[in-house]
């Protein structure tokens, strides 16, 4: 079992515990001066930031945090005259006392080497492909034209949902048709159990939506789903990278009723309720 893979609340538990244990051990078993203690904190926090978070932070963000941490540690150092004096004394000794000559020499050799190594890795590393953010649920238009018919996304609702109360048999027929539509069209990408893991899912980026995920259909209105299904990738605004999504514009394949039916099926299968329409005042 990979110990370093244990994750809790988005944090990698093992590296964090190791760093804390290391700091505690330093405190208990070594009598460090303020400067060494600060260096330990600096290194410990760096290790936590770079290894302790499950979704790795980009180097630039870690750098920013470390800048803030460095400032905070300097502030801490300068709040106590005693500490500051002790640190200064230590630095004076380090730079002038012949007792420290070997350490000083090591410092003079190691730091430039580290800088050179950093330059080397920076220059020889394969450049990273550009990454572009994308809006997952962009705001919908107020209306769309579906096969020549205007559909009002603000006010129109799934016309067959009411049947759930008024005519359960007719509603069941819509669910059954939605199921058929789903397993003949959507299953390739969105998967048998709607987990977004169909047999082609791994080949597409952005990956197909998982309808089991509570942040997808559970927080969207049915008219929003109608827009996304009918217009697909080409209907997305630029901030949602329409050029990379593999979602078809299903108006090319499905009737209006098919789309409302498959929407009903998505909610029936997952057990989610569509988000209610807001009351407009």
């Amino acid at each position: 079992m990979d110990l370093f893979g244990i994750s809790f609340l988005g944090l990698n538990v093992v590296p964090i515990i190791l760093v804390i244990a290391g700091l505690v051990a330093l405190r208990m078993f070594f009598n460090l001066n303020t400067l060494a203690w600060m260096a330990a904190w600096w290194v410990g926090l760096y290790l936590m930031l770079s290894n302790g978070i499950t979704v790795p932070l980009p180097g630039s963000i870690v750098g920013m945090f470390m800048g803030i941490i460095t400032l905070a540690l300097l502030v801490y150092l300068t709040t106590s005259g005693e500490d500051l004096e002790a640190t200064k004394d230590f630095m004076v000794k380090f730079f002038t006392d012949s007792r420290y000559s070997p350490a000083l020499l090591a410092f003079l050799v190691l730091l430039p080497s580290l800088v050179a190594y950093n330059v080397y890795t920076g220059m020889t590393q394969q450049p990273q492909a550009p990454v572009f953010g994308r809006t997952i649920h962009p705001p919908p238009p107020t209306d769309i034209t579906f096969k020549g018919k205007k559909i009002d996304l603000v006010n129109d609702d799934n016309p067959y949902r009411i049947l759930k109360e008024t005519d359960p048999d007719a509603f069941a027929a819509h669910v059954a048709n939605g199921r058929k539509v789903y397993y003949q069209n959507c299953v390739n990408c969105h998967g048998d159990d709607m987990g977004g893991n169909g047999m082609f899912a791994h080949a597409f980026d952005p990956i197909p939506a998982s309808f089991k995920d509570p942040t997808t259909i559970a927080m969207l209105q049915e008219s929003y789903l109608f827009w996304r299904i009918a217009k697909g990738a080409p209907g997305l605004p630029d901030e949602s990278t329409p050029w990379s999504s593999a979602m078809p514009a299903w108006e090319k394949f499905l009737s209006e009723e098919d789309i409302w039916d498959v929407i009903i099926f998505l909610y029936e299968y997952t057990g989610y309720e569509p988000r209610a329409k807001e009351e407009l005042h």
Partner: protein
Amino acid sequence: MKNLTILLISLFLGTMFAQEAIMGTEAQRAAGKVIYDAQCSQCHGYDGDAKSVGNDYLRPAPRAFTSGTFKFRTTESGELPTHEDLKASIRDGMPYTSMPAWPQFSDKELDNLAYYIKTFSEDFIDYGDVKPIDMPSAPSFSEASAERGRVVYEENQCLDCHGNLGRGDGPSAPTLVDKWDQPIRAADLTKRWTWRGGATREDIYQTFVTGLDGSPMPSYNIQPPEDQWALVDYVYSLGASDEADYATVLAATLVEGDFDISQGPAIFDNVPVAMFAVAGQVIEPGRAHYPGVNSINAQVIINETDIAIMLTWHDMTAETEGVNGPNMQVPDDDVLNEPIEALISDAVGVIFPSEPTVGAEKPYFMMGDKSNSVDLWFADLASSDCDLYVGKGTGSIVQAESDIRIASSFEDGKWTVLLQRSLASENGISFTPGTFTPIAFSVWDGWNKERGNKRGLTSWYNMYVPPLEQVSPVGPMMQYALLTLLAQLALVAYFRIKYRKKEEEVA
């Protein structure tokens, strides 16, 4: 009399318990039915006969449980699977098919499902009391054993279907059909991640010892036992990894001096390979629900003037006769893969934006769109040309003048296509060294009658063209190191001058 009654009762109870071990209780089967009807029937049919709304759209086709024939078993050839075999098939699923893994089912739910699935075939009541084969513990892999395994592979005619190098391209491969007369493909032994029955060495052993019932894969009684593991090791050695190592970046390598694709694939020796996942085109009408190709490998080299791309992919047969083209018409939804008379050749395409992209905006990855067009480098492998098309959507693909050169070959189930062009061209995109360019691929399997929109494709990935001058890092390394050293020395000097003086003063 009393003894006879006891005997009869115990016999009756005995059969009942034995039956219950195989078929479960009525309550268990009923609980299984609830899950089955909601989660399985859309593909396997309410009656377990695979007559379902999904069937036509899914290949390999969903199993008809009524047949009592099961591929993945730990039991002898021709026998039914064990209860645990059925559970394992549901729990682990079958990669690269529409049968997903169902890790969300509890062990109890899997039990109930397996009990219910057995009710579809009466065979389970009569012959369901099966024992798994003895599974010896696997000796560790050895090169010598794998070498011996090659001989076993040849002796048992594995190459007839799986091909000389295991790419699923043997001479009999195109003729294979399953028990229900459906075409079926021999496994590509180099891609373990696509194996339905699992990717471990134990799985390989189980597969040829038990056979895959209903498919043309028989069971083999290979003797002596060492040869069984030799075959396992050879088959295992054909693949490089258990998991597919799909890439997202295709980095070009800068080479010194001239190259020409007429020199063959050797010019790509030691150039890193990027493997991209290929999916069926299911976005526009003319969908490919089960494309013939599932991945494509690419390598790129450049020098000061030219770029060359090498594409390789596995294909059961080379279709080098007939015709293919990105504009060829396909029925709107050719779900059942209607046989057509016309010979369709294999083809491959590389897609770039026609203009360098700015910011995030790109043309649509499939074939461009109205506002941004793509260049399609299209190689119909029945011809000896590489054509250039400009696409503004699938309905607007226009041929343009091409200066792309091509060399292609097919060997042992692998296509190798080399493309070469100057970095800068008046015909289509120019590549700027030191930049990323979006790149996508399409593959048409002629045997599968893939043409026009019906094809395998990839989404956008990034191709990196390195700078033509490779700056040596030594200069900047020295520069920065020296600057650091100077700063350090200044610090030392400052402390020494300031505090030594003080000490002297104190003294």
